């Protein structure tokens, strides 16, 4: 009976781990060190800068200091996009993953809860356990975006709102920093849940988890970030686009697509290198498609998610990107199977 993933020390002490240890060390180490650890380090740093910028803004509210806080927010939100694909490891504790970004907030929960907090006693937020029990809707970037961009909030005119903004950014930095630190002190295998039976290889299972997360995120980028808000298959609702108030919806997609190529290429050997050995044609197809995704996304107009276009125009512009990401999904799924991973036979069946 296992409640928690075993520590590395336990994992490497098992015979089963030793049997195939090393096979996936290249891509796993590369992704862990160069994408995740580095990504969270950057995210943590810009979270701190966001906290400092909001402090400066609240100390001396002005258009200039507000703009600086908004710029810091945008940098931080885009740094988040680099690591957003992975809901695994320390980010899963205390609902941090969903707290970093509470999206899509279809019912406006964030605004409602922020209003309640702003009207209440600010001292409650200083209570030791406040943030561990606080709603995820007010703990991260979605809340910060609301406070900086939503017309209901005017922190430059309201001391209580500004105080709330500072509290949220301080907590957000604490969380980002905690995740970054935990990654620095650990390996991916530490967060794999040990299983009974010979042949269990924590390294392989960790990489399998990464690949599963990558596949799922690619699906979310196509469906939730692109198709749903523009009404690709149904009614348009641009407010469902990610970070639409701060106009980061397109940039977020672009950043996600860039992170995919990094996942594919980091490490020695990288996933790409290993795929080339196993199935050169498929490896190359995915490589070309990932590059094509980035190029097509960069060709979309900067104001793509803003009003001023018809739904038809927006859908027409999206078609090449939707098709390209869709092809990437197919190639990635095939490649993962070709490399010997078995992902989601039952877990993705959904019944």
């Amino acid at each position: 009976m296992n409640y928690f993933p075993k520590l590395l020390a336990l994992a490497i002490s098992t015979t089963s781990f030793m049997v195939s240890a090393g096979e996936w060390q290249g891509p796993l180490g590369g992704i862990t060190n160069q994408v995740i650890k580095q990504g969270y380090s950057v995210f943590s740093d810009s979270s701190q800068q966001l906290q400092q910028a909001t402090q400066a803004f609240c100390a001396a509210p002005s258009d200039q200091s507000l703009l600086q806080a908004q710029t810091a927010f945008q940098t931080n939100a885009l740094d988040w996009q680099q690591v957003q694909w992975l809901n695994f490891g320390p980010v899963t504790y205390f609902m941090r993953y969903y707290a970093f970004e509470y999206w899509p907030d279809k019912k406006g929960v964030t605004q409602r809860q922020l209003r309640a907090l702003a009207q209440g006693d600010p001292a409650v937020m200083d209570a030791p356990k406040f943030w561990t029990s606080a709603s995820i809707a007010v703990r991260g970037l979605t809340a910060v975006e609301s406070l900086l961009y939503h017309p209901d909030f005017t922190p430059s005119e309201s001391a209580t709102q500004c105080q709330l903004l500072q509290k949220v950014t301080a907590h957000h930095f604490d969380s980002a920093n905690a995740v970054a630190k935990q990654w620095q002190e650990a390996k991916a295998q530490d967060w794999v849940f040990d299983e009974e039976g010979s042949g269990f290889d924590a390294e392989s299972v960790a990489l399998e988890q990464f690949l599963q997360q990558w596949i799922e995120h690619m699906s979310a980028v196509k469906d939730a970030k692109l198709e749903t808000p523009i009404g690709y298959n149904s009614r348009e609702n641009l407010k469902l686009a990610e970070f639409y108030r701060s106009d980061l919806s397109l940039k977020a997609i672009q950043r996600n697509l860039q992170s995919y190529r990094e996942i594919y290429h980091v490490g020695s050997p990288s996933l790409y290198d290993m795929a080339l050995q196993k199935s050169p044609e498929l490896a190359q197809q995915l490589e070309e498609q990932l590059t094509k995704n980035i190029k097509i996304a960069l060709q979309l107009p900067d104001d793509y998610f803003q009003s001023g276009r018809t739904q038809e125009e927006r859908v027409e512009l999206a078609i090449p990107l939707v098709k390209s990401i869709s092809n990437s999904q197919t190639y990635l799924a095939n490649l993962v199977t070709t490399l010997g991973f078995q992902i989601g036979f039952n877990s993705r069946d959904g019944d």
Partner: protein
Amino acid sequence: MLSRRSFLALSGAVLSAPSWAAITQQNTGATLYASAYSLSKTEHFFGLFDKKGDVIWSSPLTDRAHAPVIHPNQSIVGIVARRPGFFIDFFDVSNNQRIQRIEPTQDHHFYGHALFTHDGSKLITQENHYPSGQGKIFIREWPSGNIVNVFKSNGVGPHESVFLNEDVLVIANGGLQTHPDNDREILNLDTMQPNVTYLSLKDGQVIHHTAHEQDLHQLSIRHLDVNSNGVVALGFQYQGELWDQVPLVGLSRINQPKMEYLPIPENIRVRFKQYCGSVCFDQSGEVLAISTPRGGFVAYWHVNSKTFLGVENCRDVCGLVATNNAHEFLLTSGNGKQLLNNPVQNQTVMVQNHANMHWDNHLRSIKA
């Protein structure tokens, strides 16, 4: 409706099918296990394996299937197509023959589960009348397949049902309205109202039903099992957001107005990813097991005390069945594992790992 000639041929085939006892005596174990499995995206099978995990019988399928249905007396097994399902194939294990295919009537599809009555004379299926979205319970004569009764399931999306006793069927009305033209797209996400219904098989009357409070209306009640004390265990699949803090496992009784939700430590609950697969009581009825392929584990409770016992990690696990031993379960996974697990004694034994096989959602045992 079968022709007289077909009926006579089918009756002959069924009559000649030996009992399960006769079949198991030819093999090493007294218990067999049935499950669909796949070797690839295009190679699908229905198979039986013994307690050593060796596949002793299998038959190819035209498509991926969902849950087996076992005839109580004769060596006949059926497999229900994956939702939206349009066939149940039945096989005589003794001669490897497919003896019958039952298809739904016009404008209906199966939900992936079916069951035989205790005497094996009738087959019960949960079906979707998709023009209306109304859930139906069909009762067919076995082996002819002739429909003898059709009852409303008292809800939408009746996914699985179990017998409380010979006269009462407990139905998990999942609440999800779908139409086969749109595969599994949920058409009523904002208005869905899942419930558990206790239905009289004598006249189709609703004896009792229970549902969640309105704020949990997206908590689909999908799979269930019942123990000898009449406790019905329920596994949910939440259609709302991944971060919502909702109960995932419940208990119901015919004389109890409301469902009870079982406690789950929060660090475990989030790992479920809002999704329960199979629901199964152990042989004693004291221990409840719920698999979650998305979470990659099976969770256990002591039912009477409502105590959470722990989890057994197993990626992509879904198949779950009680063995003949108290507190012991057999688990199957999408990556080929067959595990014996006793959560009370904290014992786990790998039966076999068929690395090339993907065991499908549900597992059933055959006791000779």
